[in-house]
């Protein structure tokens, strides 16, 4: 069991308010990913859950039991730090064993646990080494093993893969997903990499400036963003956002736009013309930057992602987006959903139509 509930959490560093009235529920057994740009308060939030950087006010519950005043070592929560924080003066074994010793686990039991964990993360051969003689990936495993051996109810991980090279990162990513499947414990994973968030999470919690912007499954966040920030944060390249004459915003994903030199696209809600500025070959896909004539009369660059690369630079093209792939946002950049605010939605659609005729 490892369900975490945060209620009304505030955190100030002196005058600076980093988190304000934050509420969050992390369900037992989920792989929850906290994602957000640098400095938005992700680490701060993890430290509050771990108990090493207590909140200024608010309550934390673990399995419906308040733990705000419980010492970090007694919360049954383990944390993997961004820089691993392995004890440099102890061997790999010493690192893994330290927490067990402090919890007075008997020697025989300790030995058994250590060899079991070392086996599962592939550290058996390295147990006698000092951390200074390990590679980055190996250190990362030590940090993981140290957290795992305590059999915690919640794993907190602060960008544990950010120091690894791309290849190792992808490998460790799938190992972590596997680990989560095997342990079935609650994972709270921090990253500022949206690809990592999308590929690992059961649930994504998107933060900005200490405020939770949206939470939900990766699919939901991708398909149904509730504001401009979320829409632009998830997905590469970011969603194209264009201003409408009525002050609202329109958005569409680069991979959802249709583009060709000839097709009229008569059934699409948004249609316009433009000129290809640049073309970027990404392997299976090609990314175009296109200057389009926008509904308000201005010219704006948009990104379009296509699987073919038949269109050359400088060519005039037609671009269109069907209604189901269009997103509208109000003046405050909050989403206008058809089922919630049909009036506003229609108004935005009308803006597009008027210009076209």
């Amino acid at each position: 069991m490892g369900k975490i509930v945060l209620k009304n959490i505030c955190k100030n560093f002196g005058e600076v308010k980093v988190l304000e009235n934050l509420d969050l529920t992390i369900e037992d057994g989920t792989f929850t990913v906290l994602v957000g740009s640098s400095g938005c308060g992700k680490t701060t939030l993890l430290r509050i859950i771990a108990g090493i950087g207590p909140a200024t006010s608010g309550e934390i519950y673990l399995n419906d039991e308040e733990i705000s005043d419980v010492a970090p070592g007694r919360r049954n929560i383990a944390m993997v730090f961004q820089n691993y924080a392995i004890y440099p003066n102890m061997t790999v074994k010493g690192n893994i064993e330290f927490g067990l010793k402090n919890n007075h686990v008997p020697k025989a039991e300790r030995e058994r646990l250590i060899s079991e964990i070392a086996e599962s993360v592939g550290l058996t051969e390295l147990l006698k080494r000092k951390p200074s003689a390990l590679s980055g990936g190996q250190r990362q495993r030590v940090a993981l093993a140290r957290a795992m051996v305590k059999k915690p109810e919640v794993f907190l991980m602060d960008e544990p893969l950010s120091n690894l090279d791309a290849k190792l990162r992808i490998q460790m990513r799938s190992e972590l997903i596997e680990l989560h499947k095997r342990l079935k414990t609650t994972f709270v994973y921090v990253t500022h990499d949206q690809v990592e968030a999308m590929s690992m999470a059961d649930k994504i919690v998107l933060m900005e400036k200490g405020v939770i912007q949206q939470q939900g499954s990766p699919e939901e966040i991708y398909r149904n963003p509730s504001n401009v920030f979320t829409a632009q944060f998830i997905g590469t390249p970011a969603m194209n956002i264009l201003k409408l004459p009525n002050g609202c915003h329109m958005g569409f994903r680069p991979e959802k736009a249709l583009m060709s030199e000839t097709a009229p696209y008569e059934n699409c809600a948004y249609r316009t013309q433009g000129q290809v500025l640049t073309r970027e070959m990404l392997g299976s896909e090609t990314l175009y930057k296109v200057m389009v004539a926008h509904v308000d009369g201005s010219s704006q660059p948009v990104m379009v992602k296509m699987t073919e690369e038949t269109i050359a630079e400088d060519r005039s093209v037609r671009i269109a987006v069907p209604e189901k792939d269009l997103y509208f946002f109000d003046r405050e950049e909050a989403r206008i959903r058809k089922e919630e605010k049909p009036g506003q939605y229609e108004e935005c659609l009308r803006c597009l139509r008027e210009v076209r005729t």
Partner: protein
Amino acid sequence: MTAKQKRKIARIVTGTLNTLFKVFVGFLFLFPFYWMAITSVKPYLETLQFPPTLWPKNFTWSGYQTVFRELNIWMYIKNTIIVTGSVMVIQIFVDVPAAYAFARWKFKGSGILWLLVMAAFMVPGQLTFIAIYFMFADWGILNSLLPQILPSGASAFAIFLLRQNFKQIPEELIESARLDNASEWKIMWRLMIPMSKATVVTTLLFSFIGHWNAYFWPLVMTRDEKLKPITLAIERLKDMERGLDYTVIMAGNIILVLPVVVLFLLFSKKIIQAMAYRGMK
């Protein structure tokens, strides 16, 4: 002459100058030791000779024999060992927690306390010894080694050095240990000290040298011969009835400094480490 040759000559010249300078400085520091050592094995008459001999013509151990015969040297050495040893042990148990607290804890008045420690660092013992002497007289402990031990129980210098070192240790390591359910005590002994080994050894060594060679403080704190350390005993070699016998005086000094020199040679690498800036791995 080609540019290459010029560079070569320049390199040779600077290299030579560099070496010469090192030899000169080394000579300045080592010569007094050398002089002390050879004088201690010269016969009395040779020590008075002018010009002096740079290598003794006749060896003699009589200086050392006199020291051991005329002084109850083991008693003094025992006193010095007890005082120095106790001071070092007490200092470990006082300075390390103090430095840890100053480095890592924000508590009420920590700023002021730190200023006080630093101020204590700057007040010389010559200013306070009378007051302290009367205090100890009040307590009735003048008849023991305690007056030589207690005032050195905390070393502001060691606290300062250790604090600077502890501050360099990444916060995450300590937080990690807290998550591992380690007590502050454990964090100190199992993490902070092992990671600051060089500094700990250095401060202990300084403390050792300071108390092994202590002269002023025992001089003003002791009346009883039984309580005096070896420094005061060696000092007495000067005013014995036989007059100034440099052989004997230097033999005494050699006995005094030998342990210090040996320890220094053993630990010199650690000292250099502690003084040089080290990045954390």
